């Protein structure tokens, strides 16, 4: 563990991910470097297959790099065991997906409560926190509804509530508005912005949508494993 007095939350150095297709090896990121300061709302753009999601997965500890170092909050996560990594995710990362990925058999409240099952909190405390999270996303009145009874926007807000219920420092959003109409999408972006500004959450958002990227404090473009501040075509 390196001592990080500086303000960098996420640091990736020389990161690469290799996929095998037949006998051919594909280097998706090719030794990429990235630093994300605390409190940043970063939008990550780039064409399909550019490795955005791969990068997000590596930072979120959903996957391990083939090469390089990933540090989050001063802690190296690329070498953690599967078990420690899972525990780390549960504590430090909130994930928001394009297709919400809610459990269809659980009510909104129970969906939000899900990550809290991995903590030692009491049943009452879990319920309280889940309600608070739902309240933050403005869905307290829908707590008992099942995903199929919610609109897309509401489902995504439930997803965000699930991501923030454990109070993680880092929020990773993979195309959070990709499946929503403009109005619902804007509401989700409002929410993310508020979480960034009012609660100081560091957010990394992968998106295709230039509108969405405009809400971020910084936008990076990923193409063929290269990061730049300007779109490449």
């Amino acid at each position: 563990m390196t001592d990080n007095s500086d303000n960098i939350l996420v640091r990736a150095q020389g990161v690469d991910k290799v996929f095998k297709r037949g006998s051919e090896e594909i280097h998706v990121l090719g030794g990429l470097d990235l630093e994300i300061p605390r409190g940043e709302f970063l939008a990550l753009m780039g064409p399909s297959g550019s490795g955005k999601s791969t990068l997000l997965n590596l930072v979120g500890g959903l996957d391990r790099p083939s090469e390089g170092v990933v540090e989050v909050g001063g802690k190296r996560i690329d070498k953690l065991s599967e078990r420690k990594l899972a525990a780390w995710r549960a504590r430090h990362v909130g994930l928001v997906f394009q297709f919400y990925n809610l459990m269809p058999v659980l009510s909104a409240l129970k969906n939000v409560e899900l990550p809290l099952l991995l903590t030692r909190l009491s049943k009452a405390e879990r319920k309280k926190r889940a309600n608070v999270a739902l309240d933050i996303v403005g869905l307290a009145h829908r707590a008992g509804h099942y995903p199929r009874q919610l609109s897309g926007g509401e489902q995504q807000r439930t997803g965000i509530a699930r991501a923030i219920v454990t109070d993680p420092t880092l929020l990773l959003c993979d195309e959070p508005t990709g499946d929503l109409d403009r109005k619902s999408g804007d509401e989700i972006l409002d929410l993310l912005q508020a979480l960034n500004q009012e609660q100081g959450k560091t957010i990394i958002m992968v998106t295709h949508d230039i509108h969405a990227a405009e809400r971020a404090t910084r936008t990076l473009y990923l193409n063929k494993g290269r990061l730049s501040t300007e779109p490449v075509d």
Partner: protein
Amino acid sequence: MKYLYLIFSSLKRKKLRTGLTILSIVVAFLLFGYLSAIRQAFAAGVEVAGADRLIVRHKVSIIQLLPQSYESRIEQVEGVDNAAHSTWFGGIYQEPRNFFAQMPVVPEELFDMYPEYVLSDEQKKAWLATRSGAIAGRGLAERFGWKLGDRIPINATIWSKKDGGRTWEFDLVGIYDGAEKGTDTSQFFFRYDFFDETRAFGEGLVGWYTVRVSDPDAAAEVAAAIDAEFANSPSETKSEPEGAFIQGFANQIGNIGFIIMSIMSAVFFTILLVAGNTMAYTVRERTGELAVLKAIGFTDRGVLSLVLGESLALTLVGGAIGLGLSWLLVSMGDPTQGSLPVFYIPTRDIFLGLLLIAATAFVAGIIPALQAQKLQIADALRR
């Protein structure tokens, strides 16, 4: 415990499929319970056989009779505590299919030898006072609706009477209960003195002896000593522990245990396929969901346990209902309408059933659970 809600919610996903799977598991455990009772009907005799009791019979076969005079000679053999004789009467009550065992015995000796036959003192007295008196087991009395005081006619197939008649009439003076669950209460006992003076032939001859030894550990030596006592006489004997005797008899009917085991294996093979198939579908359909669970911090092993937990919940519900139903069915009576000496599910088999529930759950769930465990989050989410 906090994951229980998650597990049961998952089962509600496809209610029809869950229901059908549970029903097929119900069927398996219903059969398990019922077949256990049938097996027990043949095995109970061996289990409750007294470790301190020997059966002494004619060496050539059980149908050959032994002199009643052997009793005192057996009792003089070292290590013998007491000897009591019985004889196969083999009569028919009303019609041949109403089969049950009838035996002439000496009442005091019967109760001394078989403390598991429980008869009230009052009824014992009545039996001693009535030469033509007889007692029936509770199960037998219930089978034919007999009450105390009933006159029970039995047609002899072997033992004709001195007057040439073949119908023996007995007065039911007692109904005995079993001290243990496995005690045979399907038998009918009447008095030997009445039998001996009434039968047309065979006076002084009895079927076999039950012998109680003072030290069960020395039973084999005592048996050998008894057989040696009568060696080279016209009626040589064969002595063996009561359990072995009953087992030998059960073996003659066939290897019931093996047949029932085979059927049960086929049943569980079938049910495993059904339940395993359901679990496989459950996992396949939910690849994405399981990946999300992992993404938000569930460990690989946590997901494995979750899938196994679902499998267990499914089997537990089905298994409990199935065992319960079999218990109900068994308590309604045996399939032969009373020919089996006992008919119940032994406690041991209920525990075995619970073990089987766990085993079924494990086998049905383990492959899908391992698939769920191996699931790569990044791959699964991309799908």
